[in-house]
């Protein structure tokens, strides 16, 4: 066997290079493709079920007085976003795995030998998961619209792509999913463990709202806290009719920014300070 390599190299590490490296690995893993596919299908399936359920109910019983008309174009648009919580969860899990996988497989050693500047790696992963989860959710919402359009027509429900309610579902839905994915990434960096990261994510998005929901019966101020929980923020932004909030739009956006940045900053600090 030979022991010599001929091709000369430059080897300067750049953010673009690290981003390319992360993408190569990300797209070579089957788990990535499966999770994104599941997120899209689930988001679509739940919306279809929602439109079908509401449509068939409404066609049997005329709307009751005092109850909002569920077949109005506004509500119908929001039905298309009913799978949002599941998209958040699945793409959040993808975020966890993107970081925790480095530590559970030991590949962190190779990663940080190739780029000893650790925050550059975290930054590249954050950019990658932001672009991917936003794209996945946007495509998923558009596909959902296209699939639900004939179904809604069948029940005489109207859908308007450019109406403000579907636009909320489309763009704020994507924002909510990006927030979840970045919280997942931060949890992966903080806990360095896939099971722990995913459990924390589920606790934050599903268990905490349930618990605080029960507590609102005991104290009023809990209601204010609930509105700032990440899943509630996503819901009230994307689906303001079905998940109303007392908060102003800017307050909700500040809440999203806080939930995105604070865990990431904590994760970045720990990644820099701890040994690999």
């Amino acid at each position, binding site marked *: *066997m*030979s*022991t*010599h*390599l*001929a*091709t*000369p*190299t*430059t*080897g*300067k*590490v*750049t953010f673009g*290079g*690290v981003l*390319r*490296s*992360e993408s*190569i*690995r990300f797209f*070579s*893993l*089957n*788990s990535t493709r499966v999770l994104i596919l599941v997120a899209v299908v689930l988001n679509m399936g739940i919306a279809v079920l929602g439109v079908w359920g509401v449509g068939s109910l409404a066609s049997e019983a005329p709307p009751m007085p005092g109850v909002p008309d569920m077949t109005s174009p506004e509500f119908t648009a929001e039905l298309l976003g009913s799978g949002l919580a599941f998209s958040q969860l699945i793409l959040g899990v993808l975020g966890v795995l993107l970081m925790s*996988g480095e530590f559970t*497989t*030991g*590949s*962190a*050693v*190779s990663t*940080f*030998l*190739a*780029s*000893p*500047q650790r925050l550059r790696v975290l930054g590249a992963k954050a950019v990658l998961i932001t672009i991917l989860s936003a794209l996945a959710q946007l495509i998923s919402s558009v596909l959902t619209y296209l699939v639900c359009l004939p179904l809604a027509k069948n029940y005489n429900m109207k859908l308007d792509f450019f109406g403000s309610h579907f636009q909320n579902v489309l763009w704020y839905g994507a924002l909510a999913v990006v927030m979840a994915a970045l919280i997942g990434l931060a949890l992966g960096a903080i806990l360095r463990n896939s099971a722990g990261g995913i459990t924390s994510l589920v606790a934050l998005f599903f268990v905490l709202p349930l618990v605080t929901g029960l507590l609102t019966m005991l104290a009023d101020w809990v209601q204010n806290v609930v509105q700032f929980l990440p899943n509630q923020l996503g819901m009230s932004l994307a689906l303001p009719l079905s998940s109303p909030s007392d908060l102003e739009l800017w307050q909700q956006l500040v809440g999203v920014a806080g939930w995105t940045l604070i865990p990431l900053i904590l994760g970045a600090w720990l990644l820099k*300070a701890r*040994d*690999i």
Partner: protein
Amino acid sequence: MIQAQQLTKRYGAKTVVDNVSFTVQPGMVTGFLGPNGAGKSTTMRMIVGLAKPTAGQVAVNGNNFRSSKHPLTEVGALLEAKSVHKSLTARTHLRAMAATGGISRSRVDEALELTGLSQLNRKKVGGFSLGMGQRLGIASALLGDPQVLILDEPVNGLDPEGVAWVRNLARQQAAEGKTVFISSHLMSEMAQTADHLIVIGRGRILADAPISEFIDDGLRQTIVRSSNLDPLMTVLAAEGVQLTRLDSTTLRVAGPDSESIGRRALESGIVLSELRPLQRTLEDAYMELTRDEVEYKSQVQHDAVAGGTH
């Protein structure tokens, strides 16, 4: 060149690397030898910035590796076999690593070819044997044609051909003026590869010397047996020779060779029943050096140690 200055690493109350200073020179193979748990891997992880020193510092070519702008061409390291995501192929792993530094695809192919992994196109790293994992680790280390090569136990799990290949690789890299730093817990392996040895035990440097000096460092020893030792002991003691009485008929003499001991015995008029030079191999020297520094001492004392140096 690698320069460590008063490098210390503590995990809680446990000091794994204890105030260690050494220099690894370019143009030669430096062996880093020590029993399991002596602090070799921790030291290597501190060199490449994966672990932060509790105290002291270490520089690679004069700089802290964590701020390196050309990490892949500066340092190539094999620290743990299979430090790769299990669901990736060897090629994808190397391509991803190469991408960070804009290293070409053809270079990835070369590294695969060089380490004999180019045939495993579709095999996932999770299904690799230990030896294949080591080869992939070495391929990653060589990817950037680095100035400094750090290999932690590179021959673990390799077949004899692979072992010879690693040895050859290390020698060739050193001949090109690269810095080559290889750890091992096997002296026999180092004896054939290294020009210089740094021996570590329980986190402390026990020896730092050219390999030739390492062998000569201990004095030559000879076992002498006779029913009447006293006259010989008197003569030798008068010459300042260090003597150890092992039992009533056995003596260990340090320093003079067996011929001059035999001559003294003839002059003293005593009969020797045995005159045996102790073969002091590198392995013995190493065992002796680290005897008290072994972290996990086995219950059964090895015959080689007992017969060789006690």
